[in-house]
């Protein structure tokens, strides 16, 4: 199969969906003239015009709110957040408006829009440009939250998100944009709400998503050398969460570890642990292990950032401790 980058995969999804439906458009900061600060929109304005690939003022609140309003008036907008860290600026528009309109108004109107949010650690970007804040949004009823780990899912999930009539938050890790991987040439969709067992194993289930899932695959390789067979589950969607796939996997392996780049406290791992404690405790032969970032803002200096970062080694060590 051909290989393209994560960034090219998202661009293809945009091109295909914008060609198919003239009501799909995107707006955000630095996306038309600049092509996106990570190059993820390069060429898009040439193909679709600056009306459908709109450079906005630096106003996340107006970007998000205007996308909600445009969705209510018949469009299918995509809002680009520049950095996921800026979602706090338009939090009201996300959780009080976008997420609630369909339910609060009794299902009269859908809000078919996507919020694209580049997140995660890259190049020592420090406390306000490096965060992984996905767990905040799995706490909000009405939102769907997807978070791909590779180019194929990046394309498949973005296409599914654009076609979904619900508001979808799409986290894309900044360090993944340059990652290459196989992506089918024919049209395909990655289903929202469906996790994937990427690597089968028999001793422990390791659940993750986004860039960190790739660290988990590396950790699994290290652990094979120690005789530990790891089953790697890529969540792909964190809300609605695919608990069936997790429960099925631990029924087989009897052990569960969860790893993510976000801080451990109150993270996605906490929710999965709680689900398994409620619905799958009898499957387990050992306590659940969570690997997440320490409870601090993201630090700047290299040694500090390295100490903060969840790495394949840290994941492998944590899992060794389960045996």
């Amino acid at each position: 199969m051909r290989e393209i980058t994560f960034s090219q995969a998202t661009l293809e999804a945009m091109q295909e969906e914008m060609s198919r439906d003239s009501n799909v458009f995107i707006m955000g900061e630095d996306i038309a003239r600049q092509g996106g600060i990570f190059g993820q929109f390069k060429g898009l304005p040439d193909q679709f015009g600056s009306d459908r690939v709109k450079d906005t003022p630096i106003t996340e609140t107006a970007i998000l709110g205007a996308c909600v309003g445009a969705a209510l008036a018949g469009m299918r907008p995509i809002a680009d957040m520049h950095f996921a860290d800026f979602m706090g600026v338009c939090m009201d528009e996300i959780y009080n408006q976008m997420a609630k309109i369909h339910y609060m108004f009794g299902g009269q109107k859908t809000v078919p829009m996507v919020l694209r949010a580049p997140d995660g650690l890259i190049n020592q970007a420090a406390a306000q440009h490096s965060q992984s804040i996905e767990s905040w949004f799995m706490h909000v009823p009405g939102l769907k939250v997807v978070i791909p780990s590779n180019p194929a899912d990046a394309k498949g999930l973005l296409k599914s998100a654009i076609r979904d009539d619900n508001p979808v938050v799409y986290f894309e890790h900044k360090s993944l944009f340059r990652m290459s991987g196989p992506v089918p040439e024919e049209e395909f969709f990655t289903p929202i709400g469906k996790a994937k067992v990427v690597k089968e194993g028999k001793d422990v289930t390791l659940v993750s998503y986004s860039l960190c899932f790739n660290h988990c695959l590396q950790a699994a390789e290290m652990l094979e050398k120690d005789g530990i067979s790891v089953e790697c589950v890529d969540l792909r969607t964190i809300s609605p969460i695919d608990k069936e796939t997790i429960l099925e996997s631990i029924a087989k392996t009897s052990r569960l570890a969860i790893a993510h780049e976000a801080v451990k406290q109150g993270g996605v791992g906490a929710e999965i642990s709680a689900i398994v404690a409620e619905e799958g405790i009898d499957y387990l032969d050992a306590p659940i292990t969570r690997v997440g970032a320490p409870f601090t803002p993201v630090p700047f200096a290299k040694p500090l950032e390295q100490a903060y970062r969840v790495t394949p080694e840290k994941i492998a060590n944590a899992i060794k401790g389960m045996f």
Partner: protein
Amino acid sequence: MCAKPVRKKGPSSIKKYDKELLEHFYETMVKIRYFETNIEKKFLAGEIPGFVHLYIGEEATGTGIMSNLTKNDYIETTHRGHGHTIAKGADLKKMMAEIFGKKTGFCKGKGGSMHIADFSVGMLGANGIVGGGYTLATGAGLACKMLGRKDISVVFFGDGASNRGTFHEAANMASAWDLPVLFVCENNQWASTTPYLTTTSVEDIADRAQGYDMPGVIVDGNDVFAVYEATKQLVEKMRNGEGPALLECKTYRIKGHFVGDPEKYRTKEEVQKVSDENDPIVRFEQRVLEEKVMDRKELDEIKDRVVKEVDEAIKFATESPEPDPSELYQDLYV
């Protein structure tokens, strides 16, 4: 650059108005008043739950503005949104049922007074977040422009909400992109329990229009003719692609911030004076009778019709079933 805001007076004579439009003005204003008066009674009697904010005293504003709109135009309203919703043409029964928390309401009992919406008439929803509507209305205006429609988008806000940062972001975007968005400030003097002048940098909110290079107009919000005429001019320009505008309607909130508000922050005399001297409905009645464009019998007939309609809506709401607990998860996702 746009000039300083203009103060526009109402017409010197109202003889030019069609009877139909005059009747529409009166019927809408009286309908809002009677609706709200009954909501207050029912709330105080314990029949309506939640929070309710009344539009009494501000009827001329919503009526004068909405009389220039079609069902394809959009409005974003506020927690004080019953009047706008009625003036936009929403069904009274479904509104009343929603306020009563009934299954037959616009939102199947999921919204309540602060979250009524009727998308069939372009009413995009009331917003419980003060200043939450600006950016949404801007987006609706953007959609109208992108789709090549002549329709416009109107956002209502109070003097209190005028201080939210969302106003700045939306006004700038609407102006930078020439979007058909009418920003309507209903300056009712009270930001919840605080006199707006004590917390606001300008006396006339319309002064701020200049900063966004959009026309600003100030009218007497209790004169339905003045509101109607000012809106008409602005809306015509907007439909021709001239971009956004800011209309400030000077009015007064006769009732408390919410039903049950002890109103310790102002005197009864202050409220009574406005009620006696500047009631928009009384002013309308006096004017049409003076200029002999309507007679008392015509006014009374309209009132009787409205009373019947509102009473029927109350009956419908009262007799409607509450939602079943099994409906809790309905409409969470499509």
